[in-house]
């Protein structure tokens, strides 16, 4: 297993999430994914569109119920929580959404968007509620006067800050950030990423950071999981993964990212991934990556490799190892 230490807060065990399409087609968005997250760490989840990374995040916070497997938060199975326990769990685990334009109700003031969480969990009322909203706005770098405004009056970066303030309102321990910066301009991305780092230090937060921008994931994360077609194909400490990628998919993915430095870019050896990701409704037999893999052997077409330890703390799901 991936974890052993006492300070594990989240365990995702053999998680499956299938979506039914029509009568016969089943989309296996997440298929048997296992990993764990320690307290205070940033766990990065990367992969291309359709790999299931967002579905993992949504299933963890309870927006989807798992088809199979379980999510354990501090040892408790989150799908078995009832009534008040659910509410308590949702106070501890919050989500920041990808699209800062679609995830804020345009008819609510910013103050009410942030205050709604306080109301639901009965955390503050009246003057105290207002003071708390102002405090939250300050924490994310906005000002108190913004509370009476509406989302459309803000830029993308500011909206993402509002989304972060809303997540922080219930004083969570754990945040699932689903592509929190991909809709933002680069100079603004740095603002939001630095804010997330600062909040982690100040409040001891734990993050799952879901993104397709591998450079940003490397920058922010302690451990990184790489997903492909619903599977976790590699899992390693961030520096190790980038220095020594083991899975052919990870190697191709890293090699595909252009580096903003022409001299380095010119001298880089490239591993080109041919073709495209197959349809998740009808994935290939055996290893899901075999159709694009340079090293595919007969066994890869038959048997789906399991995630196994290859080096200390470094796991890969590949028949090469």
């Amino acid at each position, binding site marked *: 297993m991936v974890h052993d230490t006492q300070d594990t807060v989240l365990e995702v065990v053999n998680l499956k999430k299938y979506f039914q399409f029509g009568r016969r087609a089943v989309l296996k968005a997440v298929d048997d994914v296992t990993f764990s997250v320690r307290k205070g760490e940033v766990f990065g989840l990367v992969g*291309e*569109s359709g790999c299931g990374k967002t579905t993992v995040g949504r299933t963890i916070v309870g927006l989807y119920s798992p088809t199979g497997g379980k999510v354990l938060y501090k040892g408790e199975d989150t799908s078995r929580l009832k009534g008040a326990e659910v509410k308590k769990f949702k106070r501890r685990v919050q989500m920041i959404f990808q699209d800062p334009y679609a995830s804020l109700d345009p008819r609510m003031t910013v103050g009410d968007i942030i205050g709604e969480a306080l109301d639901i969990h009965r955390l503050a009322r009246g003057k105290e509620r207002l003071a708390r909203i102002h405090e939250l706005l300050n924490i994310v*770098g906005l000002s108190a006067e913004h509370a009476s405004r509406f989302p459309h009056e803000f*830029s993308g*970066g*500011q909206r993402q800050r509002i989304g972060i303030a809303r997540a922080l309102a219930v004083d969570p321990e754990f945040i699932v950030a689903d592509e929190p910066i991909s809709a933002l*301009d*680069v*100079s*603004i*991305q*740095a*603002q*939001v*990423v*630095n*804010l997330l*780092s*600062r909040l982690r230090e100040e409040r001891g937060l734990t993050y799952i950071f879901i993104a*397709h921008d*591998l*450079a*940003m994931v*490397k*920058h922010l994360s302690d451990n990184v999981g790489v997903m492909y077609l619903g599977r976790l194909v590699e899992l390693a400490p961030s*520096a190790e993964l*980038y*220095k020594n990628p083991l899975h052919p998919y990870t190697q*191709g*993915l*890293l*090699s*595909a*990212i*252009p*580096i*903003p*430095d*022409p*001299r*380095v*870019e010119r001298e880089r050896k*490239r591993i*080109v*991934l041919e073709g*495209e*990701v197959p349809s998740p409704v009808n994935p290939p037999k055996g290893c899901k990556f075999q159709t694009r893999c340079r090293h595919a052997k007969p066994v890869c077409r038959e048997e789906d490799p399991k995630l196994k330890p290859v080096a200390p703390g470094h796991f890969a799901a590949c028949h090469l190892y």
Partner: protein
Amino acid sequence: MAGERLLDVKNLEVSFYTYAGKVHAVRGVSFHVNRGETLAIVGESGCGKTVSVQSTIKLIPMPPGKIEGGTVLFDGKDLTAMSDRDLQSVRGAEIGVIFQDPMTSLNPTMTVGRQITEGLIKHQRLSAQEAKRRAIEMLSLVEIPNPKERFRQYPHQFSGGMRQRVMIAIALSCNPKLLIADEPTTGLDVTIQAQILDLMKSLQTKLDTSIILITHDLGVVSKLADRIVVMYAGKVAEAGTSEDIFYNALHPYTQALLKSVPRLHEETKRELLAIPGTPPDLFVPPKGCAFAPRCSYAMRVCLDHQPGDFAAGGSHTVACWLMDPRAAHVRERHAGRAEDAGARGGAS
């Protein structure tokens, strides 16, 4: 041939007249593209990079848009003085365009084949049969498997990456001298992006086309560009060769932009430099330098007077008052600070 310049844009001014008032989107922009080279125009959303380039061939909606000044010389012809009819023989024939969104820029009701042959029949006056042969040739040139079958299919039968290949085939079908690629890989996954960029690079050498690459992604720029124009708030902040911009950036905005992105090959973690604040509202263009309110080196002159273009050796130009000889002492004082600017950062 008069010089190396294929496209020469001077003092372009473009505004949009909206209900909320006039937006001065492009405020005196000059740039040029040499034959056979790739010019990248870089900047964040709303900086005017797309409008500047699309205005040169009048692709912006008019109204509300209006080209209010400037000249555009393409291959010796003044495009601004051309009638719409004459311009039509340039667009698509001599200048090809790839748009950002391959999902919406192809016509869903027409087969891919017809969309490629359309230009060939109109501009090159090929017969339907010749056009078809050429279109299939183009499809295999952009490395689409089974081009003969693909010719008869509709855009929805193609993936995002394949659609972008079709767009490239359409844009290049008439052998244009200039290809405008507006965020050609935004929205594509990185492994597909790498394929498309490789394809563009190899086609450029094969067909000897000049490229204007509009993008916000500095990684993509470093891979393709020979020269770079950095835009901010409707103006050119800095221009130069790829080496000038990546290794000797002199404008504080360019410097900050380069420090705000993490780099995959770096081993150490440094804090990203966040540029505080947001770009100005071009409904009310700033009196002085547009970057001054966000600039950590801003001087009093920056707030009241717009800087001109200062030459910085070769084709390198910088629109910043720090380049003025009278600001030499400020520049020196900041030289040390710029080094550790990467360590500062922090949210605004």
